């Protein structure tokens, strides 16, 4: 299981790294879909089928399809500027900041993983017996019912916002002619 984790993790990092390199937005999106699938496999290895299924359904299935729709709707061409080896100051700053954040994260995670808090009540055996979906469903409708309602409002507001933002505005003279 540990070996499977390392293999899948390496593949996921590789396919995420593709996004930095590939020029065409469509290839980037497909590579990201692959990354999301591999992360779904990792969630299964971490004993959590609910998150794995949701990952594949919503991230790979819904969000990335939306991205692909927009890319194809806008008919984006791949970046045609010549690939320059010359690093501008912005690029150097960006790479430096990235490496800094990576070092910081690994430092913090390395020191925090050693001292995890007290164990919770959901052992791996219990999760396997009861099923992660049942446990999540029960928690969501008891302990977390208020955030659950709030995110449903958030989703509705974002739908309306998207419609308002993406709607084509009529030309101004038409608006004026209407009483």
């Amino acid at each position: 299981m540990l070996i499977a984790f390392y293999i899948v993790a390496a593949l996921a990092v590789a396919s995420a790294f593709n996004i930095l390199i590939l020029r065409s937005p469509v290839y980037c999106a497909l590579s990201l879909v692959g990354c999301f699938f591999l992360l779904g496999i990792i969630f299964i290895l971490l004993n959590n089928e609910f998150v794995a299924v949701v990952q594949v359904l919503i991230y790979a299935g819904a969000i990335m399809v939306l991205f692909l729709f927009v890319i194809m709707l806008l008919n984006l061409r791949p970046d045609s500027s010549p690939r320059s080896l010359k690093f501008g100051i912005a690029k150097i700053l960006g790479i430096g900041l990235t490496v800094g954040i990576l070092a910081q994260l690994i430092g913090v995670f390395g020191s925090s993983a050693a001292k995890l808090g007290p164990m919770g009540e959901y052992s791996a055996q219990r999760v396997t017996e009861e099923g992660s979906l049942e446990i999540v469903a029960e928690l969501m409708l008891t302990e977390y019912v208020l955030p659950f309602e709030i995110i449903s409002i958030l989703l509705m507001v974002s739908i309306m916002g998207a419609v308002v933002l993406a709607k084509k505005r009529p030309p101004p003279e038409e608006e004026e002619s209407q009483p």
Partner: protein
Amino acid sequence: MIPVSHILGLSAILFAIGVGGVMIRRNAIVVFMCVELMLNAVNVAFVGFAYGMQSMVGVMFVFFVLVVAAAEAVVGLAIMLAIFRSRESLDLEEFNLLRW
């Protein structure tokens, strides 16, 4: 049992790749995909902690992060459609209306 520190390491690497993409790439949609990747890296950390601490709180947070990611994708892509209508481009270098 997979050690929690290795899961967190994977999460950190994915997050750093996302940050790098936001810094380096010039296409607005690709930058947006990198933001999604960063949200996903956080999800990996949440599930890793839930796995290591035998708790379900992390899994609940993954669900909420997911909904926020979906809402963000919808609104962000709508903004991009609106920008593309007026500018005919999604190159971040050309968005200079709010620049000094």
